[in-house]
C-alpha cells in the first residue's frame, strides 16, 4: 500500500466518489477512509432536495391528463378541418406526423431533453429534466459523493427505463432506491418490485393468474417477464440453479401486483394488489412452498430471495466490480458476500465492508469511469456552470442516456463495452473545454484533480498544450482522469 496520504485521498475521491473539487484532496488527506465512512453517517444521506417534484403517482396522472388534452385538441382541429373542407375551404396542410401505431401513447416531437434553448419544454420533457437536475446537482455538489455513487449503482442494478415509463423514471429512483440505499436490501427489493414503475417496465400489470377470476373471465394468463428478471438480475443471478418452473411459479405469485389506472383521480399510478388477478393457491418457488396469502405471498418470496446466499454472492460481485475492478479479487467478493449474509443484507454495513477491505485500495486504477461518472467529475473539477439538457445529451451521445438503459440488465459495468467510446469522449471533452477553459488554469487543475495520481507524461502533455482549451481537453482525457 502507498504511504502518501494525498495519494490515497485522491484515489478515494475518484474510486468511491465523483472526483475532486478544488481543495478536496487536501481536505480528506488526514483520513480518507474516515471521510468515506463519515459520508455514510451524514444526516439525510442518500436523500435529495425534492420538495417541488411530483411523486410518481402525481407525475403519471399529470402526464396522462396532458396527453388526453392534447389528443382532444388534435381531434378538435381535425374536426374543424373536415368541416371547412366540406364547405369547400382549402386548409393548409397541418404539420402532423404523429402516428399512433399499436395504440401507444406517443410523446410529442420535441419531447427530448435537448434543444430546449428558447421554448419552454413541455410537460413530458420537464418531468425528466427536473428529476435529472436534482440528481446531477446532488452529485456535483457532494463533498465526496460516495453515497450518491451507491445510489447510482443501485439505480442501475434495479433499472427501469424512461423510454417505457417516462413519467416515473426519476421519481422511482427517489422513492424506491434512495430511502434504502443505506438500509436493508430486502426493503429496497420490496420497494422496487412493488413500485408501479418497475411493474410497468416489466409488464406485470397485465399478468393474470390463469385460474384467477379475471384470468378465467378474460381467457388471459401470465406474463413472466418480471418474475424472470427478479431472479436473474435483481437477486440470485443467472445460472444459479432456478428453473423455468420456478420462473412460472413465481410469476403466478406476482399476479395481482399492479397499479391503479393513471386516469383515476387522486390515486392513479399508485401500487395496488388486485385479488381478482391473483392466481389462487399455494406455489412452490426454489423448493419452498408458499401458501396463498395474497400480496404477502410475493413479499415472502422476495424476503427469502433477499436472504439467499446466491443473492449475496451476486450483489457482492457486482459491487466489487463496480468500484474496484472488472475482475475483482475473489477475496474482496468473499468479504462482501459474508458481510451481506452476516448483516442480513444491511447495505450500510456492506458499504463499510467495502471501505475497510484492503483489496478496495489497490493503487492500480484499472476501472474506466462510465460516461455519466466521467462527465460529473469534469463538472466538479472545473466548477463549470451546467445546463441539465447539455449534461444529459452528453451522456446520451456517449451511450449512457440517463434512465434509458437498453435492457433491464442496465448499463454495462466493464471496460470492453465503453472503451471504444473514448473516441466520442474526446469530442465532448473538446467542446466542453472550448466553452469553459478561458477562465481556468489547466496546469493548476492537474493538481486539483489528480495531485499525486498524475504521471509525468500527463503533466507534460497538459503543460505543453497549445491553448487552455486543448490543455483542459487533454487533462479530462488523461488516463488518470478517465480511470478510477
Amino acid at each position, binding site marked *: 500500500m502507498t504511504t502518501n496520504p494525498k495519494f490515497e485521498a485522491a484515489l478515494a475521491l475518484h474510486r468511491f466518489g465523483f472526483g475532486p473539487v478544488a481543495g478536496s484532496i487536501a481536505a480528506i488527506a488526514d483520513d480518507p477512509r474516515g471521510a468515506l465512512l463519515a459520508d455514510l453517517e451524514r444526516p439525510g444521506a442518500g436523500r435529495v432536495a425534492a420538495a417541488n417534484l411530483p411523486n410518481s403517482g402525481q407525475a403519471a396522472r399529470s402526464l396522462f391528463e396532458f*396527453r388526453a388534452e392534447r389528443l382532444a385538441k388534435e381531434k378538435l382541429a381535425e374536426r374543424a378541418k373536415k368541416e371547412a373542407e366540406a364547405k369547400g375551404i382549402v386548409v393548409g396542410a397541418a404539420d402532423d406526423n404523429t402516428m399512433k401505431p399499436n395504440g401507444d401513447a*406517443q410523446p410529442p416531437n420535441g419531447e427530448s431533453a435537448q434543444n430546449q434553448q428558447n421554448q419552454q419544454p413541455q410537460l413530458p420533457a420537464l418531468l425528466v429534466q427536473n428529476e435529472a437536475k436534482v440528481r446531477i446537482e446532488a452529485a456535483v455538489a457532494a463533498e465526496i459523493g460516495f453515497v450518491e455513487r451507491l445510489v447510482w449503482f443501485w439505480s442501475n442494478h434495479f433499472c427501469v427505463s424512461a*423510454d417505457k415509463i417516462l413519467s416515473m423514471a426519476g421519481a422511482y429512483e427517489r422513492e424506491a432506491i434512495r430511502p434504502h440505499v443505506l438500509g436493508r436490501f430486502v426493503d429496497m427489493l420490496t420497494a422496487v418490485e412493488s413500485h408501479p414503475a418497475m411493474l410497468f417496465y416489466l409488464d406485470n400489470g397485465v399478468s393474470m393468474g390463469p385460474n384467477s377470476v379475471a384470468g378465467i373471465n378474460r381467457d388471459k394468463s401470465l406474463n413472466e417477464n418480471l418474475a424472470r428478471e427478479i431472479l*436473474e438480475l435483481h437477486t440470485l443471478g443467472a445460472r444459479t440453479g432456478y428453473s423455468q418452473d420456478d420462473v412460472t411459479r413465481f410469476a403466478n405469485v406476482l399476479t395481482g401486483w399492479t397499479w391503479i389506472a393513471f386516469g383515476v383521480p387522486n390515486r392513479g399510478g399508485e401500487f395496488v394488489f388486485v385479488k381478482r388477478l391473483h392466481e389462487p393457491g399455494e406455489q412452490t418457488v426454489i423448493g419452498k412452498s408458499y401458501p396463498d396469502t395474497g400480496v404477502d405471498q410475493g413479499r415472502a418470496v422476495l424476503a427469502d430471495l433477499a436472504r439467499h446466499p446466491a443473492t449475496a454472492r451476486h450483489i457482492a460481485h457486482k459491487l466489487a466490480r463496480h468500484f474496484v475492478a472488472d475482475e475483482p479479487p475473489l477475496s474482496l467478493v468473499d468479504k462482501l458476500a459474508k458481510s451481506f449474509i452476516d448483516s442480513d443484507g444491511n447495505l450500510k454495513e456492506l458499504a463499510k465492508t467495502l471501505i475497510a477491505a484492503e483489496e478496495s485500495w489497490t493503487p492500480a486504477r484499472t476501472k474506466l469511469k462510465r460516461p455519466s461518472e466521467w462527465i460529473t467529475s469534469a463538472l466538479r473539477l472545473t466548477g463549470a456552470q451546467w445546463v441539465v439538457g447539455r449534461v444529459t445529451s452528453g451522456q446520451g451521445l456517449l451511450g449512457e442516456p440517463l434512465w434509458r438503459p*437498453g435492457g433491464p440488465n442496465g448499463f454495462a459495468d466493464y471496460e470492453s463495452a465503453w*472503451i471504444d467510446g*473514448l473516441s466520442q469522449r474526446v469530442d465532448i471533452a473538446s467542446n466542453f473545454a472550448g466553452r469553459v477553459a478561458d477562465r481556468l488554469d489547466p496546469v493548476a487543475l492537474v493538481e486539483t484533480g489528480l495531485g499525486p495520481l498524475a504521471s509525468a*507524461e*500527463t503533466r507534460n502533455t497538459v503543460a505543453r498544450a497549445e491553448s487552455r482549451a486543448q490543455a483542459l481537453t487533454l487533462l479530462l482525457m488523461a488516463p488518470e482522469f478517465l480511470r478510477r
Partner: protein
Amino acid sequence: MPKLHAPSRRELLLASGALFAWAYLPKLARAEGRDPRFLTIVLRGALDGLATVAPVGDPDWVSLRGDNALTLDGKTSALKLDDFFALNPAMPNLHRMFKANEAIVVHAAATPYRERSHFDGQDVLESGVEKPGAAYTGWLNRLLMGLAPGDRVSANGGRAFAVGPVTPLVVRGPAPVLSWAPRRVLPASDDTIARLIDLYRHTDVSFARVLESRAKLTAIAPAGSMEQTPVGQIAGPDLAQLRAYFSEAVGAAAKFLAQPDGPRVGALALGGWDTHYNEGIATGWLAQLLGALDGALAAVQENMGPAWRETVVVLVTEFGRTARINGTNGTDHGTATVMLLAGGALKGGRVIADWPGLKAESLLENRDLKPTTDVRAVLKGLLKDHLRADDHALAADVFPGSDDVKPIAGLVTSA
C-alpha cells in the same frame, strides 16, 4: 385492471442504439476474382420466428396461435414463400429477394443455449461459445484473427470496427477494433488527437488503439455517410422515423462495405424485439419493426450497388419466443426461431427447415418451437464458403467445441 397507456417500444429501440462493428480490410488479395462482403445483424430481444415466417402449411398452426396466426388468406395475408411457409406481410423487400433467389430462411434454428435469459442468450450467440459468461470475445473478431494472411478476407493489417459508443460483444476481441460514430458534436482537432495518442502510447496503450483507429477511419469515411446526416434524435420517433433510422444505420454500414478499400466484414445490433405484450404480429408493433428491418435490407441492396452480388447479410437473434401467445397478447422467451439470410451471393429462394411440428408433444417442454438446426451450422457454412474460413479454425476458435456441428454446405453460389 389498469388501462395500459402502452409503452413506447419504438423509443426503447432507438435509445438502445444502433451499434455496429465491422472488420476493416484496407487492401484485399483478389486473386480468386471475388471480393466477398459479410454483414451480421444481431436482433436483440428475441425475435418471434413463427410470427416472422409462419408455417402456414402446418395443420396445427392456426389452432396454436388462433387470431394471431398469419395465414395466406387472412385479413393481412402473409407472403407465400413455398408450399409450407409464408413471410410476414411487412417484409415485401425480403420477399422480392427470396423470389429472386437472393434470400434464404432457416427455420427452427437455435444456438446451443437452452435457458431463457436474454443476456446469457445474447452472450452465447455473440461469443460463439456454448456456455454463457465464459468469453469476452466475439466469434466475428476471432474469425478475423484466424483468417490467414493472403486469404481473400484477412485480418492481416485489418481491424474490427465499431460504430456507436458501446461495442457489441460479437466483434470484441484481440483483433483491434476501430470505432466510429455519427458526429453530433464538433470533433476535436487532429492536433489534440495526435497529442492524446502520444500520451496514451506512454501511459495506456489500450486507449491509444482507440484513437489511432479513429484517425484511420476519418480517412475512409464514405461520402454521404452518417457524418453528414446524423441519426435522428431519440425522442418522439414515429414509424417514418423508425424506418429512416434503420435504413440509415444499416445502409451506412453497406456504404462502408461497398467501398473499394473499405471493410469487408461487419456487424451491428438492433434492439426492440422483446414482445411480451401486445405483439402486433400482422399490423402492430412487430409488423412495424419488421417493416423497418425490411426497408433496411432494401437500403443495403441499394447502397451495395454492384457489390450486392458478392454480399451476404445474416440476421440472427438470441432465441425465439413461446409457440403460444401468452396471457397478454404477446409471447414470452422461447427457444427455436428463424435466421434470415439475404444477399446476391446466396443460392437463395429456399426455406431450410427440418420442421419439428407444432403439436403439444412436438414442442420443447410443451412450450417452444423445438430446435432442429444449430445456428452455428449456418454461420459456419457461410464463413467457410463465403469467406474461406477453414474447418479447423471454425471448430476450434470461432465456435469452440463445435466439431459435431457440421457447416451447412451450398448456401452461397459456387465460388
